[in-house]
C-alpha cells in the first residue's frame, strides 16, 4: 500500500465522512429538541437524490405526488383539530400553511420539471421539495404523540421509516439513480490527485455546519430551539410552543438530509431503500457525541467515513461489519465515562 492509495482512500473517507457528519448533526438536532430518534432520516436523503435524478430527466411526478398526498393528510388533521377545539376561525390560515403551501411547491415542481431548468435550479427545487416533507411528517406522525416517552417515539419513528420506504418505492420506482458530478475538475496537491468533487462536498458540508452554528448561536429562533432542547417546561413558559419548535426542527433536519442526498448522488447509486444503511453510519457518528454534542458527533462521523473507506480496501466484504462494530467500544466508553445524571427536574 503506497502513498497515492492511502491518499485516495483518505479522500474518499473524508468525503463520505462529511456527508455522515451532516446526517449525524441532523439526528442530534432532532433528538435534542423533539426526543425523536429520527430513523427515517435516510429516506429523506434517498428522496433528495431520487428527486434530483428525476428532475434531470424532466420528471417530478414522484415527489409532487408524495408532497400532495401528505399535504392533504395534514390538512385533514388540521381541520379535525380546529373543529374539535372550536377554533374554526383559525382553520383557513392553518390550511394555507399545511396544505396550500406544500401543494404550491408540488405544483411548481410538476410544471417546472419538463422545462429542464439549469442544474443549479434543479438542486434548489429538489431541496425545497424534500425539505417541505419534514414539517409535514412531523405534523402527521410525531406531533400527535409529542408528549409520549422516548420509546414510543422510537417505535413511531421505525414505523414511519418502513412507511417512507414503501412510499419511496411507490412514488420513485425500484430503479436506482445517480446524478452527474458537480464538477469533473481535479488538481495535484503535493503529488496526490484531489478531485474537485470531493473538495466541493467537504466545503459544502463545512459551510452548512457553519451556517447552522450561526443560526443556533445568533438568531432568536435558533436559541429558541436550543432552549427547548435544554428545558422544555422553561421554553413553554417563555412562550416557545413545542409544536413550533418541532416543526422548525424537522424542517431543518429534512433540509440537511436532502442536502446529503444531493451531495451523495454523484458518489453512489441510490435506490428507494438505500437511505437506511447510510443514515445508520450517521447514527454511529452521532453516538460518539452521546446523541447530544455536535462537535463529537461530527468528528465521529468523519472517523466512520475514513474507517469505512480503508476497510473497503482491506476487507471489502466486511466493511459494514467493521463500521458497525465500532459502535460497541464507543458505547462501552460512553457508559463508563458519563455519570448517569437524573433527568433534570
Amino acid at each position, binding site marked *: 500500500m503506497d502513498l497515492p492509495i492511502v491518499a485516495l482512500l483518505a479522500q474518499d473517507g473524508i468525503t463520505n465522512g462529511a456527508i455522515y457528519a451532516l446526517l449525524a448533526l441532523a439526528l442530534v438536532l432532532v433528538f435534542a429538541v423533539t426526543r425523536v430518534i429520527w430513523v427515517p432520516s435516510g429516506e429523506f436523503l434517498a428522496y433528495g437524490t431520487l428527486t434530483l435524478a428525476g428532475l434531470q430527466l424532466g420528471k417530478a411526478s414522484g415527489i409532487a405526488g408524495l408532497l400532495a398526498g401528505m399535504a392533504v393528510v395534514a390538512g385533514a388533521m388540521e381541520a379535525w383539530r380546529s373543529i374539535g377545539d*372550536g377554533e374554526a376561525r383559525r382553520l383557513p390560515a392553518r390550511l394555507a400553511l399545511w396544505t396550500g403551501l406544500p401543494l404550491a411547491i408540488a405544483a411548481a415542481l410538476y410544471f417546472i420539471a419538463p422545462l429542464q431548468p439549469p442544474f443549479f435550479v434543479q438542486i434548489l427545487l429538489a431541496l425545497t421539495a424534500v425539505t417541505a416533507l419534514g414539517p409535514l411528517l412531523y405534523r402527521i406522525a410525531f406531533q400527535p404523540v409529542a408528549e409520549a416517552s422516548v420509546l414510543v417515539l422510537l417505535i413511531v419513528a421505525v414505523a414511519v421509516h418502513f412507511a417512507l420506504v414503501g412510499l419511496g418505492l411507490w412514488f420513485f420506482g425500484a430503479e436506482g439513480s445517480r446524478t452527474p458530478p458537480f464538477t469533473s475538475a481535479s488538481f495535484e496537491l503535493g503529488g496526490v490527485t484531489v478531485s474537485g468533487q470531493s473538495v466541493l462536498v467537504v466545503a459544502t458540508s463545512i459551510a452548512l455546519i457553519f451556517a447552522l452554528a450561526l443560526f443556533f448561536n445568533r438568531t*432568536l429562533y435558533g436559541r429558541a430551539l*436550543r*432552549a427547548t432542547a435544554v428545558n422544555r417546561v*422553561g421554553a413553554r413558559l417563555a*412562550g416557545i*410552543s413545542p409544536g413550533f419548535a418541532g416543526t422548525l426542527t424537522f424542517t431543518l433536519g429534512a433540509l440537511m438530509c436532502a442536502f446529503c442526498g444531493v451531495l451523495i448522488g454523484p458518489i453512489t447509486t441510490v435506490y428507494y431503500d438505500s437511505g437506511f444503511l447510510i443514515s445508520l453510519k450517521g447514527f454511529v457518528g452521532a453516538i460518539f457525541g452521546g446523541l447530544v454534542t455536535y462537535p463529537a458527533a461530527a468528528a465521529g462521523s468523519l472517523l466512520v467515513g475514513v474507517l469505512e473507506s480503508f476497510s473497503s480496501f482491506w476487507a471489502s466484504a466486511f466493511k459494514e461489519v467493521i463500521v458497525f462494530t465500532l459502535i460497541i467500544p464507543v458505547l462501552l466508553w460512553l457508559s463508563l465515562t458519563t455519570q448517569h445524571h437524573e433527568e433534570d427536574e
Partner: protein
Amino acid sequence: MTTPLLEVESLSVSYGKVEAVHGVSIRAGEGRIVSVIGPNGAGKTTLLGAIMGLLPSRGTIRYLGEPLAGASVEERVGRGLVLVPEKRELFASMTVGDNLALGAFARRRDGEAATRRSLDEVYGRFPRLAERRDQLAGTLSGGERQMLALGRALMGRPKLLMLDEPSLGLAPLIVREIFSIIVGLRAAGVSILLIEQNARAALQVSDDGYVLETGELVLSGPSAELAADPKVAATYLGQGAGH
C-alpha cells in the same frame, strides 16, 4: 371594583385520581399584589400550574374578562400571563443574555427595539445580571438564579406576574431585595400573584391574601386583616395566640 385581571372560580385540579386542589376561587385585581400562603403540600404550586395551563383543571379561569379554557401555555404567555415557577426552569447551558432574550420570545413581533428596551430595563433593575450577561445560567448562585428567572419573566412584559416562592432557599438579605423589587414592580404597573412560605413578608407587601390548606381556601381578605388574625398569627407568623 372593576372586573379583576384574573378571576378563578371553583377550580379543582387532580393528579390522576387524587384531587390536590378542591374548588378554589381567587381574584387578582389590577395593580395589586395578591398573596397565597399555606403549608407545604397545600396545593399552591398546583394552583399556579392550572392557571398557567400546564395542568388540566375543572372550573373557570377568566383573564382580562375572557375565559382561558382552550388557550395553550404559550398563548397565555403571549397575553401577558407569565409564571416564575418554583423550580425556575432556566436554560442552564445558555448564557444569562440568551435566557433574557428568550423571555421576550412571545413578544418577538413587537420588534428588536422593544426587546432592547425591555432588556435595558431588566439590567437596570438587576445590575448583577448585567455584569454576568455572558455567564452560563447553570453556574449562577441561587439568588442570581432567582433574579434571572424574574428578569426572564419581565422580558415577556407581563400584565399579571405569578411568582411561586420567590424567596425559596435565599438568604434574608436577598429575600428583602427580592421583595422590594416586587413592590417596585407593582409601582411600575405589573399586577402580581405571589405564592409564599414566608407568610410574614408576603402579607407585609401584599394588598390581599388567601390562605390555602390541603387544597382548600380557609381564609381570605385584605393582607393587613389576615396578618392580625390570631389563627394566621399562630400558624404562619410563629406567634403564640396570646401575644
